[in-house]
């Protein structure tokens, strides 16, 4: 681990530098500090969002109370897409700049993204039964969400099948990027194929077609989902850092708590 040692020798730059945190050694404590704020924000925002969603927001005129699933469903669907983009972004950064941490971040994000895709599908099915009268339809958004879930599974399965972490990172990155290129093609192909899902209720270009309290609750839940995702990814990336860098000095110091010189003990 000569890279790690050389970065130890380098004096820390006086000003703040984003790249300072690009190495696992410096990012590890930062991630640890960021954890609790994320968890607290996620918990508070979830409580507030669910309170607004279940007690404050009015009952929908046409869908009754079953619409309230959107407070979980919509943030989950958003996050499943955002996380995939973030994952593909870190994969691209890793391939271009050859940074270890980027690949670790992408690996850490994948399970959370897959969970969001699954939650979006599951809650969507529960909402579909009372509203459309069926748990599942081959509608464009449902189908593309399902395919997104498969893309996550493929990424994780490929990484799991390769023993060498370096090859696993790069092969996974390639399929993630190819998948990201394909996502819009898949989306439009399925959209032209069959569409039943209601149009987007929230968009950046038009005024939202829902009550303000509903929107507030949903956005709070979306922020909670963001906080949870970041927290979960940080926990996972910390574990991956320790696992991958287990032979590096900084990890030994961290684990044993002692100043390790590298010539005796251990």
């Amino acid at each position, binding site marked *: 681990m000569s890279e790690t040692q050389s970065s130890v020798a380098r004096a820390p730059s006086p000003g703040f530098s984003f790249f300072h945190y690009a190495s696992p050694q410096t990012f590890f404590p930062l991630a640890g500090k960021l954890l609790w704020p994320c968890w607290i924000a996620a918990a508070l925002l979830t409580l507030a969002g669910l309170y607004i969603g279940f007690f404050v927001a009015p009952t929908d005129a046409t869908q009754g109370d079953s619409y309230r699933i959107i407070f979980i469903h919509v943030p989950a669907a958003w996050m499943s897409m955002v996380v995939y983009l973030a994952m593909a972004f870190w994969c691209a950064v890793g391939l271009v700049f050859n940074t270890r941490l980027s690949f670790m971040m992408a690996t850490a994000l994948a399970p959370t993204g897959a969970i969001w895709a699954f939650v979006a599908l599951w809650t969507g099915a529960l909402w579909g039964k009372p509203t459309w009268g069926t748990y599942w339809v081959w509608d464009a958004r449902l189908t593309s969400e399902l*395919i997104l879930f*498969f*893309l996550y*599974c*493929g990424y994780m*399965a*490929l990484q799991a*099948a*390769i023993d060498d972490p*370096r*090859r696993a990172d*790069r*092969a996974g990155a*390639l*399929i993630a990027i*190819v*998948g990201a*290129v*394909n996502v819009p*093609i*898949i989306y439009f*192909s*399925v959209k*032209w*194929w069959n569409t039943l899902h209601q149009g987007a209720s929230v968009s950046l270009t038009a005024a939202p077609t829902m009550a303000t309290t509903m929107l507030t609750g949903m956005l709070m839940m979306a922020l909670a989902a963001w906080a949870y995702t970041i927290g979960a990814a940080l926990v996972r990336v910390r574990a991956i850092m320790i696992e991958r860098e287990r032979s590096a000095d900084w990890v030994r110091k961290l684990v044993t708590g002692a100043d390790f010189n590298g010539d005796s003990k251990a």
Partner: protein
Amino acid sequence: MLSVFMAVLRRDLLLAWRRRSDVLTALGFFLLVTSLFPLGVGPEPDQLAQIAGGVMWVAALLATLLSVSRLFESDEADGTLEQMLLSVEPLAVIVLAKVCAYWLLTGLPLVLIAPLIALQFSLTPDETLIVCASLLIGTPTLSLLGAIGASLTLGLRGGGALIALLVLPLYIPVLIFGAGAIDRWRAGLEVGSNLALLAACLLVALAVAPVASAAALRIAQD
């Protein structure tokens, strides 16, 4: 560059000619799977004609998946792949040539045998023509995308199931546009748009897949 392309193409075709049974596997699989459907869903001609497009497309997709995992296998086993990686010629061109040979050996036969299956599914001549046209434009895309999966899973345990998980999601647009062409024709709509979209998919795959596959080979043989 063209000479390298032709040399690899000729080599792969020659190798396949010497071992003809490998080529026929995918074709036999395609024929068998499509023949299973009438047995499974019943022999009513109307019903068969309705599902024919989808069945032939799914069978073509699975036949590609079945054979594409072997695309780089023998080259890796005898060390040819290493020589290709070391070559000064662009690897993407070599990969493209290999995919072209692969399509000529497995994709094109499917297109040529398709009219026979269309007959079994009681399609009209017009419908047969559309299915064949969509397969002709669509199967090269399947081969190209399959090459990415094949190079990523090269030498991995459980490669066959893994390549399905990786590649099948990428096949979905091709499947939708390809099988949709005949559905549109049967509904009395024009089919040009679907064929054009298939061609667009092919062009994107032609631009991206050889480069991605070459990159994946370098990763695999790192």
